[in-house]
């Protein structure tokens, strides 16, 4: 099911008399193609959960429309939208067994959609099998591990074959190992069912690794939407560039002068045809290549060994962060006792942003 958000806005009244309204979601416009897995990504408080609640119908928008396919669902209550929602804390009904939890949405069906008891249990068994919890059907939620609870929540959301599946921070309550495992599982389940799935996360790695499309948000405003690699390779503004990628992108105060990108006194890269002036120069960690004749000189701090790669930590007077992190293949020799290290830069890993608007130049 295609999901379209048109000019979607949600304002919450401010607290107290003087406080202005809080705009959680501001003039959202985007279209989610049918059958895709979408990662809604942004820092805490950026409005991503509100967006999810608007799509589920738990919140009503102040302005704008939500369409599922061609149907306008803006005015429909959640029970009539046919969405499945997995809560961050799973919200499994604690007094029901796993099976009762999964059957619950089916029991609520009325009219011609109503199923027989056997059909319901059949469906529940199928959903449980899909998420591999069919051996736990008689347990109560408190007798399950976090990962198992999450699977139950997904099965419950999927059992009535929702038009859209929504997941709110689905992996945040799991430990690191389980998180890796579960996100692949999520991808598999989404592929197998083909249900349009939107999940919210603040973990960019999580979003990048399994999404077909990622939607980056900040302060209620849509920043960029695109395939993970595209967004990573072509960030539209400084925020997106900084939000995606670990280690974080390195940002320098620089300027464009004479068709060259200058950091301090060094011309680090050619920038033909760019408008002259002050810019932010952002360089991905993998954009640095050690080269004794390279144009960019940094002060060496230390080297962190990560096995396959090493992370060279250095500093520069024009940097904006605490230090500069560059990721270099462990096979390239680097002298950690040297005073300075010189780099050559990969042009496609360097982004220039306007000093004022922070938009890409």
């Amino acid at each position: 099911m295609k999901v379209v958000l048109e000019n979607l806005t949600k304002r919450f009244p401010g607290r107290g008399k003087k406080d202005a309204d809080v705009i959680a979601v501001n003039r959202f416009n985007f279209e989610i193609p049918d059958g895709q897995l979408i990662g809604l990504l942004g820092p805490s408080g950026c409005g991503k959960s509100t967006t999810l609640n608007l799509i589920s119908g738990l919140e009503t928008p102040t302005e704008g429309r939500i369409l599922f396919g061609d149907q306008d669902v803006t005015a429909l209550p959640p029970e009539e939208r046919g969405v499945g929602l997995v809560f961050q804390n799973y919200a499994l009904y604690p007094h029901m067994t796993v099976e009762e939890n999964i059957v619950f949405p089916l029991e609520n069906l009325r009219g011609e959609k109503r199923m027989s008891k056997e059909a319901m249990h059949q469906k529940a068994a199928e959903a449980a099998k899909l998420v591999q919890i069919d051996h736990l059907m008689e347990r109560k939620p408190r007798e399950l591990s976090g990962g198992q609870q999450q699977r139950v929540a997904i099965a419950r959301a999927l059992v009535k074959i929702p038009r859209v599946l929504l997941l709110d921070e689905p992996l945040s309550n799991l430990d690191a190992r389980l998180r890796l495992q579960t996100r692949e599982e999520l991808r598999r389940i989404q592929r197998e069912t083909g249900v349009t799935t939107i999940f919210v996360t603040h973990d960019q790695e999580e979003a990048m690794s399994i999404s077909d499309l990622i939607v980056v948000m900040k302060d209620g405003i849509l920043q960029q939407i695109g395939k993970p690699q595209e967004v990573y390779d072509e960030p539209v503004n400084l925020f997106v560039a900084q939000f995606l990628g670990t280690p974080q992108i390195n940002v320098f105060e620089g300027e464009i002068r004479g068709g060259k990108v200058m950091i301090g006194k060094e011309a680090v890269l050619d920038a033909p045809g760019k408008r002259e002036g002050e810019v932010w120069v952002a360089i991905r960690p993998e954009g640095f290549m050690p080269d004794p004749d390279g144009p960019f000189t940094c002060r060496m701090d230390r080297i962190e060994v990560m096995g396959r790669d090493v992370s060279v930590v250095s500093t520069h007077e024009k940097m904006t962060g605490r230090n500069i992190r560059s990721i270099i293949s462990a096979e390239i020799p680097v002298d950690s006792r040297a005073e300075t290290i010189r780099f050559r830069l990969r042009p496609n890993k360097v982004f220039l942003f306007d000093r004022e608007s922070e938009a890409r130049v």
Partner: protein
Amino acid sequence: MKSNLKAWLYLLPAILFLGVFMVYPLIDVCVYSLEENYNFARQSFTGVGLENFRHVLSDPYFVQALKNTFLIVIITVPLSTGLSLLIALGLSSIRALKNLYQTVFFLPYVTNTLAVGLVFMILFRNTEYTKAMVNLLIEKFGGTGVDFIEGPYWAKMFVMCFYTIWVVMPFKILILTSALASVNQNYYQAARVDGASSARIFRKITLPMISPTVFYLVITGFIGAFKAYSDEVALFGTNLNAAGMNTIVGYVYDMLYGDSGGFPGYAAAAALILFAIVFTITYINLMMSRNKVQYI
């Protein structure tokens, strides 16, 4: 062993007080109930046996008290609990004036029983000067009034139950409101997304979630209603036997200190009968609720 001694030392005050004021009297009640024709003044009795129980059970006043108590219990406990649940649900779903309503519903709890009794007098008692307010209302709408305080039995029982329900509801509303507030909103949201109607959400989510609280209120409600006495006095005066509105606790009191009192043996027997009833009912409650109450 030293640490053990210290523990006993700490327990001593409690044990002493409980022993003197709880355990000893309890044993004493059992002893009294078996001593026939016990005389306070002479501290003597004529025999040991079940004569006291036989007498009490055949005493028409006791039978009346038993009947009254059972009626009060059966009528007031389900009604007050159900009404409290309705009001608590209402309170938790409104936003405007919520605090005002909470205060209004809680007022009877902090009001003196006798003051409440006076208000009920104005509402229900005909005096030489004016009729009861309720009767005035009934007559205004073309009915005929009835003497609620000294009139027919059903009228008196109605006032009695009305009063009891009204007095016990504030506490129940308070407890249920906080129980409802402690249910995580996510469950309701999840149930809505799962397509459950309000009625189903109440039956399948809310009720199981607050079932321990409801159960607690039912148990304490039963016990409290079986022990009813002061409310009856507030409405019908101290001579409850004459009004036909006595309760078991009232009967026990009358047997000890009432105008026709001075029979500790009868009082003790009646008290033990009450204990047996309350014990049985509570046990049945526990049995019945075993599968219904969800301790999460």
